[in-house]
């Protein structure tokens, strides 16, 4: 085994930008993520072990019966390690050496908050600075202006967990569609890439060209304020009285505790966007040059007829020379081919400066190397 040092031309750090696409389809209070059906398992209502319409963080515990789940635990010690789900009181009441248990199947999905001056106003008030911060992009972000006062408006706030988009939602990719009995009655797009959700469809519809809300790209919110009538069909969005469809009713029934009455079944919604995420990769070029790496310490490298033979004395320990096995193939069975030092490269080990093995790259199949060959292996490490 030989050690080589990477020089500056052998190491590259790159950033890869990804745009994961997401699509949510909502009908009668049920969410379908990326058109994936919510399959029932043999032991659970949804086979991935989280409520229908949610993603599972680790995707552990697939269709596990109750009481048979994988769960994390740790032993309480002096380092104050615990789980976020364990309260401070509960943690303090645990003795040192006791086991602290948590649970898996952490889930996430979009949610919907209806905020107005009289209900859930804190949810909007908490975003006041954020809204105002983005007002340089569009005046529609302003918390209070001639375009509306968000403190007193009815706002349909769609929340999107960051597991779906990464670091931010990609500008220009947000698209919302509103259907009644399968017919498109409204479509919003942020095609201006300034956060405005502009009604772009159907062509000629009421409110077409108007801004019905804004997107908070970095925070994962869609705030809808459009209250014009999209369709004259009355649906019981409000338990007290049937309403016509408006953007403030978009996504009705999405994990918002609203009871989905039979009359609201005809409404369905789709939400599409792309996330934006970056990750770093390190590329390493490992060179196997001419005339190098042509010897192996593998026991099979020497002829099997050579056993270990040593001569020892008071002041010496001498191993006898061994014959390297000739593995050059021959076209003739009765003729020994000309010897050529040949090795098969199967792994590349990455070592730190103290020669600790910190990574191994394995070839799919070993690469044959003679003294006349040279190779460069390209190793990629996601970091």
């Amino acid at each position: 085994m030989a050690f080589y040092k990477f020089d500056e031309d052998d190491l590259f750090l790159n950033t890869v930008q990804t745009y994961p696409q997401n699509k949510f389809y909502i009908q009668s209070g049920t969410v379908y993520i990326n058109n994936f059906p919510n399959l029932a398992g043999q032991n659970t209502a949804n086979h991935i072990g989280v409520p229908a319409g949610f993603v599972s963080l680790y995707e552990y515990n697939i269709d596990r019966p109750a009481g048979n789940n994988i769960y994390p635990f740790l032993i309480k010690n002096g380092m104050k390690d615990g789980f976020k789900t364990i309260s401070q009181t509960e943690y303090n009441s645990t003795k040192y050496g006791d086991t602290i248990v948590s649970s898996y199947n952490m889930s996430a999905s979009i949610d919907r908050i209806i905020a107005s001056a009289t209900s859930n106003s804190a949810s909007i008030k908490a975003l006041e600075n954020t809204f105002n911060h983005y007002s340089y992009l569009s005046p529609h972000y302003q918390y209070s202006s001639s375009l509306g006062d968000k403190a007193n408006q009815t706002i349909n706030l769609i929340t999107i967990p960051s597991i779906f988009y990464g670091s931010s939602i990609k500008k220009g990719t947000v698209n919302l569609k509103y259907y009644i009995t399968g017919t498109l009655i409204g479509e919003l797009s942020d095609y201006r890439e300034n956060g405005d959700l502009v009604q772009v469809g159907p062509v000629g519809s009421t409110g077409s060209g108007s801004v019905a809300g804004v997107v908070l790209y970095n925070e994962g919110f869609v705030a809808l304020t459009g209250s014009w009538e999209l369709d004259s069909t009355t649906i019981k969005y409000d338990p007290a009285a049937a309403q016509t469809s408006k953007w403030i009713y978009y996504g009705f029934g999405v994990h918002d505790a609203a009871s989905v009455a039979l009359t609201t079944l005809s409404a369905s919604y789709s939400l599409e966007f792309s996330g934006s995420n970056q990750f770093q990769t390190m590329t390493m070029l490992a060179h196997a040059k001419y005339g190098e790496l042509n010897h192996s310490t593998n026991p099979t490298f020497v002829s099997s007829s050579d056993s270990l033979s040593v001569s020892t004395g008071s002041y010496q320990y001498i191993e006898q020379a061994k014959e390297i096995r000739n593995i050059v193939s021959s076209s003739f069975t009765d003729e020994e081919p000309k010897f050529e030092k040949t090795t098969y490269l199967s792994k590349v080990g990455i070592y730190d400066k103290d020669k600790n093995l910190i990574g191994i790259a394995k070839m799919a199949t070993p690469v044959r190397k003679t003294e006349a060959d040279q190779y460069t292996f390209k190793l990629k490490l996601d970091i």
Partner: protein
Amino acid sequence: MANFYKTLNQTNDIVNTRTLLHEAIPLTGTIVSGTYGVENIKNYSHGMFQSVYDYPYLSSSANHIFDITAGYANNSGLSASANNQNSKKINIYNQMAQVMMGYDQTGSILQFDEDGDLLAGGTKQKENIFLNFSRLLVKDEIKKGSFELEIGVTPEYAQNGTVFGDRIKLADLSGSDGYLVNSPVGEYGILYATQSAGTNVMAAIGSGHSTPVGLLFYQAGVAVITGSIFLEVASGGILNNAHNNVSMSGPSSTEETVLAVLTGSQISGAADNIRTRIYNLQFNNTVELNSTVYFCRANHNEFNYSSNPTYLSGSKIRVKTQTTDVPVSYITTIGLYSDNNELMAVSKLSEPLKKTPDNEFTIRVRLDY
């Protein structure tokens, strides 16, 4: 944001710690054989091993649990060229042995040793079942002393669950304090068998724990189990002679012993037979979390002012209306900087801390990696 640099004391302010996080991994026999029939069992055209998933493997939701295979040494009494997949079974054994046990000074592959004492020689395990657990489940390593594999050893063969009337439990009873380190792939412990259900299932045991029946490689996540767990003492196994050999299913008969299965069946067939005898399988894994804790100290006379623009009103400090007023600031964020004052990390407080000359804080910033 206001920036005040304060150098951390390498001795007193920075502490490296290590946390061991565990997961309990229960795998009941119904997952391994039963719930999904063979939909979660994947066989390959090469026929060298069988993969077990926790859900039908054609689903993207399925997780790989473990691979199961079997093999014997070329000097085993079972080895014969007429055997089904004879060379593959020998290759499997050799491959596992050379990776797990390594070579001796002559370059020969060391065989699996019953007690792990290679220098003393002793009994070698030449006919083995191999369970290679998925890295998803093993993580850094199997937690020592936590492995349990319960196997049904009712002599009669059936596929209706009645093979679990008599059971033995394989566990690394010596795991927490008696593991071995003479393997190229890390630490390993000895699996001991004890009777867990039924009467007079196992032969009488002498002193010590119980009967050694295999090895468990903690970091590699591999269990090596001798085939003799299905045999009576008279046949070289561990079961009571009155209990008889365990009948496994096979291609020619449903009354075959494990020896007949290892020789006459393909590896996938042997894996099927062994898999349907698994009653329960569970272990805990371990993940090592390394942390560095930075103790960031704000003394009474530090961090009481801010250069935040909102700190001033009309060129006067907003919080000081009289000369006798003490300064006040609110700490919201701590930045960790390199030697060259490059911002490396930011930690945020859940709520701002009010800082005056009357109080001092030590804020514990933990960086996990």
